[in-house]
């Protein structure tokens, strides 16, 4: 029986509390920090060589789908009723509404040092000390909307542009492609204008603080954001039923992308699972 992932703005008080408590429980036993570590370790940039499984690659979507499933399974071992809610940033755009409330993720960082001081993940609670970080910072930081140099959350039309593209991804399967659903959603652009950073990437930048960097998983909003990105993948799939994950076959030895991307039936590191096996998760969970 598939379980349901809900819109975070619709969670009841009890659902919020149980989600938060499950996160705090896995943080306490060190499990959460392994997720942070794993995400840092799998960030390979496309100008640097090596296999890219998590970012700047077709498997951006299945990689994060599986990553979410692992986190969700960890939470459900603590409390079997918990699922990861999604944050629809095309609708919930206020810095004071869900998910930024005291009973959920807490609010914006304070002005002086961007430290989050409200809610269950505030440093002063003693429950959310950051261990795996790019900086020596031990407290959760946010700078919602980037006060010093403001940016907006992606518009609904940005998401619509991505969803309209019938092709999953195109060669050379990296951050430079300007077509294909995957990068339109992942959001790598060119040029230096702020419009160059779209959708998924833009939301990381809008939240700011730890969400800006390699240790973004330290902010629990990471999961709510990626649940929505994952939901958008299911929306794209139902709009373009005849279209599948690409590439179907691995790029050959003559290609610059040889051994650098994961094709449909190849193993997706670090798991023993292929994008093909992750394309349809509807028997595990559904979105409400």
């Amino acid at each position, binding site marked *: 029986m598939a379980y349901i992932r809900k819109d975070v703005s619709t969670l009841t008080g009890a659902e919020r509390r149980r989600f938060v408590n499950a996160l705090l429980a896995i943080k306490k036993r060190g499990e959460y920090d392994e997720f942070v570590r794993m995400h840092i370790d799998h960030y390979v940039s496309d100008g640097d060589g090596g*296999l890219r499984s998590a970012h700047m690659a077709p498997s951006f979507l299945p990689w994060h789908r599986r990553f979410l499933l692992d986190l969700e399974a960890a939470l459900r071992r603590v409390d079997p009723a918990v699922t990861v809610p999604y944050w629809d940033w095309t609708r919930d755009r206020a810095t004071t509404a869900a998910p930024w409330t005291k009973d959920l993720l807490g609010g914006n960082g304070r002005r002086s040092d961007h430290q989050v001081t409200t809610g269950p993940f505030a440093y002063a609670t003693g429950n959310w000390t950051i261990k795996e970080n790019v900086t020596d910072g031990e407290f959760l930081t946010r700078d919602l909307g980037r006060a010093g140099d403001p940016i907006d959350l992606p518009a609904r039309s940005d998401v619509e542009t991505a969803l309209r593209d019938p092709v999953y991804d195109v060669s050379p399967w990296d951050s430079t492609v300007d077509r294909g659903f995957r990068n339109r959603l992942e959001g790598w652009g060119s040029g230096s204008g702020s419009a160059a950073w779209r959708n998924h990437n833009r939301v990381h930048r809008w939240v700011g603080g730890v969400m800006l960097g390699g240790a973004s998983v330290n902010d629990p909003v990471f999961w709510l954001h990626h649940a929505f990105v994952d939901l958008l993948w299911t929306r794209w799939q139902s709009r373009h039923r005849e279209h599948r994950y690409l590439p179907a076959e691995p790029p050959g030895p003559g290609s610059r992308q040889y051994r650098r991307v994961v094709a449909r039936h190849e193993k997706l590191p670090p798991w023993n699972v292929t994008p093909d096996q992750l394309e349809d998760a509807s*028997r595990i969970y559904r979105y409400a």
Partner: protein
Amino acid sequence: MAVSVEGVPVSAVPAATARSAPARRTRRRDLLRGLLGASAALAIAPVVAASRPPGPADAGPAGSSFDETYRGRHIRGALTSSGPAAATGGEWKVTVDGRPLHLMRRADGTWLSMVDHYRSYATPLEAVRAAVDGLGPGERLREDGPAHHHTHMGGHHGLHP
């Protein structure tokens, strides 16, 4: 609990991650040594960026090194001939207030840092300034470096022109 994707059991725990943690830490230390070695390299001869692939990244003001104070932070960077990327044009070694900052390169030739990971910049200097912008007041990079070692994760090294 074990969930199942298309009949394939999907183990719920990132067990491999947990198991390999000590090895990873060791590799991190290796990287640290590399970076400390790099600060020595900063003082020696940075190689000229002749073999870098063409692209927007080549608009760097100083070419192959910089050393300046930006928003109260001492930022230094140099293109060195050491490191795994040496054969393909060298590797940038960068510090902010003496602590190493790992730069990554995008296929279009632009640069991003571990601090500011979801957009890129035309030059290493711009990427480092942006990282400073992304640091909170009083926040410093880790002494033991950015703890990023994708170059150990397999695959060949080399810039993608």
